[in-house]
């Protein structure tokens, strides 16, 4: 009962955050990039609900537009990573043999690469004249393309168990074709794992984007994201003087907690 209530509350919070991000224009009349240079670092007021940043940009507008960037693209990257993990992990687990060894070795190799340095190197190779929107999409696609190996190992282990299970043997004996086996037996059995991996990856990608932005390599200015908004929190004394600047951090923590609560429990998975 308690868990269900928590889950409902978390879904409500996530839904609200998503809606505000998606329809940002309806919640603020300030463009996120407009600089009010006479009022840099202003405190919250009726004109600027969360004050302004160092360049005089409305901080509330930047937070809700930043929500859009982080909360729409992180699930997309998570979907991509989970899809890659599902296909490769499924094939490796169900086929076994040299193919499984090869795929697992590739996953191990990918996991041993320092993700941050790979992202920095990839960013350096991107053409310079891409728009900020395209750049942010490229960042999240890269995250999705590099974020599959840990999910893959889990999917592969589950598929291997499934391959040796009695009901798959029975289905094969009944004369199911490969596609029937895949859609009627394999995918329904692995769906909870796919879902869990998808939900786990979202906060992970939000945090990775935040880290990249902290390094100045994430979402390009003037486009806001939770990550680049959090860059101001590097300086603790500045933050303690302007605590409202911690709103993106609060939203990030709240969202990550909510994602954890809406995840299916281990009992549900089994």
């Amino acid at each position, binding site marked *: 009962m308690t868990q269900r209530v928590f889950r409902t509350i978390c879904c409500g919070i996530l839904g609200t955050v998503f809606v505000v991000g998606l329809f940002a224009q309806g919640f603020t009349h300030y463009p996120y990039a407009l*600089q009010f240079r006479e009022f840099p670092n202003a405190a919250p007021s009726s004109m600027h609900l969360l004050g302004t940043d160092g360049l005089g940009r409305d901080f509330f507008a930047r937070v809700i537009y930043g929500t859009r960037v982080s909360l729409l693209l992180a699930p997309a990257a998570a979907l991509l990573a989970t899809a890659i993990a599902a296909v490769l992990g499924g094939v490796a687990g169900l086929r076994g043999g040299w193919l499984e060894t090869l795929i697992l070795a590739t996953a191990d190799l990918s996991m041993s690469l320092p993700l941050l340095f790979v992202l920095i190197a990839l960013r350096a190779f991107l053409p310079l004249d891409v728009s900020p929107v395209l750049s942010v999409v490229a960042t999240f696609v890269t995250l999705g393309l590099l974020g599959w190996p840990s999910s893959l190992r889990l999917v592969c282990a589950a598929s291997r168990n499934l391959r040796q299970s009695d009901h798959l043997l029975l289905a094969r004996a009944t004369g199911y074709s490969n596609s029937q086996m895949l859609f009627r037996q394999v995918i329904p059995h692995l769906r909870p794992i796919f879902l869990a991996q998808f939900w786990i990856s979202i906060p992970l990608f939000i945090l990775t984007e935040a880290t990249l932005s902290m390094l*100045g390599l994430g979402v390009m200015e003037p486009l806001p994201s939770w990550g680049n908004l959090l860059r101001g929190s*590097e300086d603790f004394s500045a933050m303690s003087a302007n605590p409202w600047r911690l709103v993106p951090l609060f939203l990030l923590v709240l969202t990550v907690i909510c994602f954890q609560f809406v995840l299916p429990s281990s009992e549900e998975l089994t």
Partner: protein
Amino acid sequence: MWGYLRIALLFILGCTTATRGGEEPSELHFCLHGEPKTFNPILVDDEASENIRYLTGGVLIRVNRQTQAMEPGLAESWKVSKDGRTITFQLRKGLYFSDGTPFSSEDVAHTMRSLMDPQTHSATGDAFRSGPGTIEVQTPSADVVVVRFPAPVAGLERLFDQVAILSSKSPKKEMSVLGPYYVSEYKAGSYVLLRRNPNYWKHDARGNPLPYIEIIRLDIQRNRDIELMRFRRGELQLINRVDAEQFERLQKENPAVARNAGTGLDGEEMWFNQTSSPTLQEYKRKWFQQTEFRRAVSMAINRVDLSRVVFDGFATPAFGPVSPSNQFWFNSSLPAPKHDLQGAQALLSRAGFRLEGGNLKDPAGNRVEFTLITNSGNTAREKMATMIQQDLAELGISMKVVTLDFPSLIERITRTFDYDACLLGLVNTDLDPNGQLTVWLSSGENHQWNPNEKTPATAWEAEIDRLMREQASLSNEKLRKAKFDRVQEIVAEQQPFIYLVNKNALSAVSAEVVGASPVALNPQVFWNIDTLRLNNSREVGAKQ
């Protein structure tokens, strides 16, 4: 009775003597912002090593950082020949290195030979290389040295401010020094401990030996926030170079410790890629090579806003390649940079650009858009780039900002030339324009907008080449100044670099430190290290 009293008196005296003897020697703490790469003064090419060289090295001539005038150091006097090729030093007598080795003209000769040896690859030595050939050093006596260069060296005396004299005889080699301190301990990645050189030649007006402070501990600390936190806690007494945001907060907390020495030598600038790189589209190259385009961009940038918003007012709009704090070489007749949108629009329309639906288009109909690159992690530069983006949007120019890690950025601006425009800072350590020769000569590697040109690409670059070569071959400072003033005028007209701001020289000095008077020149806060004192501690001067 008297016996007990005598014992008691002796005990009290003994206690007093023990307390005095147990006093901590005066110790000054501040930070180096990187690992010193070398303690050999002739190999210095990084800021941390340069600071160590300043604190430990004895030089023949010292540039006074406050007056910017030259003062005698190890040389009592000097004379430069009319042709600017020979300098004769009269050395001080009876001086010793920190390890007790006597100082003589042989040491100067040894230093100059080592410095100019091509195998040494000394950046300091490169400044003396004005022409092909080798230097000749003669030592007619133990206190006279004559150094003859193959070609005239402009501003020759000032260059000796960077030449710390090495001992030719000491077994300690470069660790034996003639400056106020010597390196006593070094723990890589942690600290450098300097102790007072007992053989330092300088004395104060009352005849007390200098420096006053016994020990300097230089902690190696790259993180500026941690440095500031330690300063606030009283663990550090100085911070050399505080950024504007930190300075403002420090000023609010304790105005006495925040020291603003006014406009510094360092500047921030942007430039357009004018190279013939195949990665740059032809129509963009045409814009970037047009003087009207560059001037229009320059006029559209609101430098006053950049100074006020990004640097909290601790910067001044930049005029040109020389900061106003460089008293002699700054050309004060240059026009002040103006934010003039209408003027910029007029220049662009004269060059055939037109505004269509809020977008600027060139005569061929291409939309004017380009990318500005800068190094990631530098918040001030990222803010400046974002403000320039909004300023140029008012002209209908679409500018994208891309931050790159430093090695990728350097690769693009020096090797692949795959970029449109770049925003970076210029760190000026040398007051003399000869230090900027590789920037202004069209054949120079640091001629950033179009490096290593075989022949000057434009008439104005050819004129700059001629003027820079002429000033470098003259020994008359007034004539040199006239030539370099003209260079500054051409740069202001042509805007190959769009100078943005000159940052103020900001520092922090604890109330414990007496005698600090930070200046714009490096090292801003400890340039007069030998006369600094610490409150409430045992110093050499205090003992007298």
